[in-house]
């Protein structure tokens, strides 16, 4: 009697737990995988410094793809200036954290504060970009964002007093440590934070409005959704998180140049990951990014006689997925789950 009561209570507790993690966007499997990734760098083959760096790269790309997919997968506008917004956040944060004087003044704030300043500035530019692209349909908006991105890169190249232009600047690091492990936990928590925030938003009514606008702006307007509000909100938030991630990049690598950070090809890399992961899922990019980084690094180290082969594979994968499997990895996952369930029922 007593044991069944506790069992029931346990069951409800378990169910409440499941419904809670579902609410913040995790399935039990997803959460388990995330925990595995989180403890991974403490065990041998993964505790080597260069492997931790790969994991950091993976989390960095994953977080970017989440922020990117928030725009591309929901309101169906490819933000082609994404990398430039990220770079803007990185440079702003780097400048505010700089201890060497520029324009007769050295702010020298803590990087923990400046990454938020960088994120705010990037968010502001995202806000302006959202207003600019308001009246434009998909492709026009993408090209407009691209132009704004190129202009931002030109600006960074030209304001040599602030950014040292193409020479590159060296922002201070978060923590003075030779270990990469702290950085891994910083970026991992950033990734989880971004994922949960964005997932909560797309799970609410706002997310429905995004999807409606993405499918047909006129129909959305006719059914009482104000596209202006949602579009600008979406762009602002996506840019804000891009800027935040840029801040991490600045204070992790400790070196910034416009062409390695803000170039169009960087946006395309993120686009590839987000699309291979599956549009409109947010988690698809995360699931793809980690294995992808390992795969790419594996290729790079084994095919070092063929520099750039990993990029070609990126492109071929993206094009073939676009043509033959537009749902991406998340679409495949849902298909497989449905298939297994129907088999079990039989």
């Amino acid at each position, binding site marked *: 009697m007593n044991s069944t009561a506790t069992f029931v209570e346990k069951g409800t507790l378990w169910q409440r737990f499941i419904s809670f993690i579902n609410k913040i966007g995790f399935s039990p499997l997803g959460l388990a995988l995330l925990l595995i990734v989180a403890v991974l760098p403490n065990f041998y083959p993964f505790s080597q410094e260069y492997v931790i760096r790969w994991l950091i790269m993976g989390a960095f790309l994953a977080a970017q793809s989440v922020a990117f997919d928030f725009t591309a997968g929901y309101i169906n506008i490819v933000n082609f200036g994404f990398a430039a917004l990220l770079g803007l956040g990185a440079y702003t944060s780097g400048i505010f954290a700089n201890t060497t004087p520029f324009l007769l003044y050295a702010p020298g704030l803590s990087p923990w504060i400046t990454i938020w300043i960088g994120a705010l500035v990037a968010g502001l530019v995202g806000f302006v970009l959202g207003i600019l692209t308001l009246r434009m349909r998909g*492709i026009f908006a993408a090209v407009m964002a691209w132009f704004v991105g190129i202009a931002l890169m030109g600006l960074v190249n030209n304001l040599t007093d602030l950014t040292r232009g193409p020479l590159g600047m060296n922002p201070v690091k978060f923590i003075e440590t030779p270990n990469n492990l702290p950085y891994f936990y910083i970026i991992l928590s950033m990734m989880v934070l971004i994922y949960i925030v964005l997932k909560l938003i797309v799970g609410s009514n706002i997310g429905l409005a995004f999807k409606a606008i993405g499918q047909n702006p006129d129909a959305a307007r006719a059914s009482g959704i104000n596209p202006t509000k949602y579009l600008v909100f979406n762009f602002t938030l996506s840019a804000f998180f891009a800027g935040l991630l840029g801040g991490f990049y600045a204070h992790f690598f400790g070196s910034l140049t416009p062409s390695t950070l803000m170039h169009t090809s960087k946006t395309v890399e993120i686009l*590839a990951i987000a699309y291979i992961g599956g549009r409109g899922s947010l988690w698809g990019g995360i699931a793809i990014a980690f294995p992808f980084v390992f795969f790419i690094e594996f290729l790079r180290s084994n095919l070092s006689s063929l520099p750039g082969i990993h990029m070609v594979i990126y492109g071929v994968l993206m094009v073939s997925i676009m043509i033959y499997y537009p749902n991406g990895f998340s679409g495949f996952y849902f298909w497989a789950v449905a298939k297994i369930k129907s088999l079990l029922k039989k």
Partner: protein
Amino acid sequence: MTKETSEGPMITVNILHRLKDNLPVVVVSIFSIVLFIMIGFKGGAPQLFNVIVTGGMWALLATGLALVFGVMNIPHFAHGESFMVGAYVAYFTFTPINKTFLASGSKFLLYLGPFLAIIAAGLAGCVLGIIIEKIIFAPLRHRTKEGWVMNAFLLTVGLSFILTNGTTLALGPNFRGISRYFDVPSLEIMGAYIAVDRIVAAAIALVTIGLLWFFLRRTKTGRAIRAVSQDETGAQLVGIDLDFIQTLTFSLATGMAAISGASLLFMFQAYPTVGLTPLYFSWYVVMLVGLGNIAGAIVGGFIVALLQSGTQLFIGLSWQSVVPTVVMILVLMMAPSGIFGSEVKGVQEQ
């Protein structure tokens, strides 16, 4: 008598009305003329000639872009890679040809060499266009038309990624260029010395655009292309082979981009990512005048070249990517579908 008096104000009202309707066109025309005169004063004849050379090339690239968008509704992001392929083909044909011709000692052959290289590049571009269309766009087109514009755009992005990195893989990231095609002294025009290469490049651009214009207006196939761009279903109903027309259009556009890449080899050395600047400026032209507007793209090429040259002269070379964007934003705020407007069907629906 009474008729005239009643018509007089009517005409003025009419003109005012038309002026108001075409405000962006008027503003841009006046702006361009003023800029042209200012550049003429500050930079003199060489600068003006520079505007014609780059303007012609941007026009050539932008017409290809406009053609592909107008007929096939593909926002072509790999257009710069066609330019890159043209530059490489021209380099790899020109260097050996020039060596043999130099050995033969014949002046005529030496002058012929560059043209052979440019023609070879154009042909290679056409073939590349056919291959890309048949492998990538035809399968997608036959499978689904849903969300076509966006999907096609992303496909071309992936394609550009593959082509750039594939080139790096095959040929390495080295720069391959020539200092000049024609080893002759510069010509003197209006008191300024202008390299023969530039004159030839401008001539090639203008002749190619002229030929394209003639082809589209006067030949049966050209008319079929325009028919498809106006109404796909209608064109199919009167018996136009849609597949053929679309492949032809794509290969023409790629060929033209390759020709401009080849004839500008002395300015843009061939390297894997050389296409980004031409891509950027041709997109800029097309957005400025209205997507898919071919006649507009020709005019727009020169407007953008003026703007570029003006930025370079009055503000500084490195601001070339910032100033045009600001101008573009202002123009698109005034006229969201470009200066001359876009007549492409299907863009608004997708």
